[in-house]
């Protein structure tokens, strides 16, 4: 698996299975949630494989729980590896988070404290996961609503050091940077500037809900102006990085998401001359 510019993609959602297959919309690639397809067969698997015939795919997991103090879930990793072999994605990602402890799963992406103990723990587990899978994986920066008193390292330095030590790559969620920067009062540009640009293989864009004194990463709205601005500044510094829009709730008809994806294309092509060919004026 290597960094390549796949173009502009969407998260593949059940609501759009039929339209994607029937209409072959102008999406360069799709991201699929790994756990949704860790099943034996049936309609979801059928659509997955049919759509895979026509589009590049990447896999995005929510259950690796790399930061948990529970042992790594070998059964989950085996099923993940089986799906990777089945789907041959361009790459595989999960989140810098923990999802549960003492065998109980919260089914949420919970933040880790940014300490040396957590860093050593996570790097050691990333080594095991990457060795088992046989390739590097991408870790997504979290959105978070709390900060721990134990944290002694800024999140961006923690992420950058984790990447340096483990060789993992970064899925940079620009909306998450914005959400956490608002919640914890830091500079989102400094966050993004902390990474080696070559380590960032993919970008997520999404919407959130603004409650004034805090912001929640809900993935149920269009991308807001502030996140678009942050994206454009980011992509201008990074160069072409595969970019996609994530929508998990209040999922609109496909044409609405395609229009939003076109906005990402336009903003990126405005700052990256190499992308301008083929982009409508």
């Amino acid at each position, binding site marked *: 698996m290597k960094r390549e510019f796949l173009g502009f993609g969407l998260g593949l959602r059940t609501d759009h299975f039929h339209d994607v297959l029937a209409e072959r919309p102008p999406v360069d690639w799709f991201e699929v949630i790994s*756990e949704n397809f860790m099943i034996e*067969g049936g*309609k979801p698997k059928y659509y997955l494989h049919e759509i895979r015939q026509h589009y590049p795919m990447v896999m995005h997991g929510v259950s690796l729980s790399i930061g948990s*103090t529970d042992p790594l879930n070998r059964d989950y990793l085996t099923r993940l590896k089986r799906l990777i072999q089945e789907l041959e994605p361009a790459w595989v990602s999960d989140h810098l988070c923990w999802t549960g402890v*003492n065998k*109980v799963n919260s089914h949420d992406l919970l933040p*880790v404290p940014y300490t040396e103990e957590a860093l050593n723990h996570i790097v050691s587990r990333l080594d095991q996961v990457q060795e088992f899978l046989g390739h590097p994986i991408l870790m997504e920066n979290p959105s978070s609503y709390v900060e721990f008193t134990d944290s002694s390292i800024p999140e961006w330095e923690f992420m950058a050091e984790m990447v340096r030590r483990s060789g993992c790559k970064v899925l940079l969620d620009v909306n998450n940077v914005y959400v956490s920067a608002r919640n914890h009062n830091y500079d989102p540009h400094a966050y993004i500037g902390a990474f080696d640009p070559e380590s960032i293989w993919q970008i997520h864009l999404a919407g959130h809900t603004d409650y004034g004194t805090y912001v929640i990463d809900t993935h149920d709205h269009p991308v807001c102006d502030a996140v678009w601005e942050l994206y454009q500044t980011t992509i201008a510094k990074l160069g072409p990085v595969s970019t996609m829009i994530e929508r998990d709730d209040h999922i609109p008809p496909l044409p609405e998401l395609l229009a939003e994806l076109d906005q990402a294309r336009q903003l990126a092509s405005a700052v990256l001359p190499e992308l301008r060919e083929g982009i409508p004026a």
Partner: protein
Amino acid sequence: MSDLKHLQEQMMAFIMGQPSSTDGLLKEGQGADTQTRLGIYRNNYLCALRDVLDTDFDILGRYMGDELFDPMIEGYIETCPSQYTSLRDFGNQIPQFLTETEPFKNYPQLAHLARFERALMDSFDAADRPRLARSDLMAIPQEQWPNMTLRFHPSLQRFQAPYNVVEIWQAIKAEQHPPDLTTQAAMWVLWRNAERLTEFRSASDFEQLMLNGFLSGNNLAGVAEQLAASFAPDVIAAHLVEQLFTWLDAGWVIALPTDAGTELTAV
């Protein structure tokens, strides 16, 4: 215990609504206070689990009504926290919970209705296998038929309940008033058809005996012998092959092994 483990246990306890000690764990920041911020995770947890049970037990929920279904969901979330990596499996223990817990256990049909909804889901995403057609059966030399066994599509399941819960499910699905509860001993068969749609229908006494016989691994001769204990030879002669054709047409059969060293398997 490591600081990391302690932190995770306390935060998880808070999220699950259990006694926890989160004092001093969190930095006070600008804007919302730490309890509000931690509450976002508690809320996310409850919403995700409630949503999946609402979706996966849609008909059960409508049958029970919000006044009974909502406390059932709250009780289940508290008693059976998820140990699964996929939310798809979170409701696996709902039938058992309904069987063991007051006041739900006083309405034994609830557990069977839940079991039926789970069985539909299991057929929906069971493994895919190519299916045989009636022409495949006809291609097997007749002298090999007595020794022939059947292998069924992975989505095929038998469902039996002591109550008319399938009829209740059907009425609610059709947005009609459910029938009164009655006892019954019908056997239903669930499967996913070639168009990947989940189907189910009741099986006659004859079909039940046949299906149970083949699923136990008996060959055609053995199944015919079992049928002979309950049905007259002319009934068996008239219906046995016809029933096999019905199954093949419905896409239930994936292999017809015989002991002649051949195993006819769909490719």
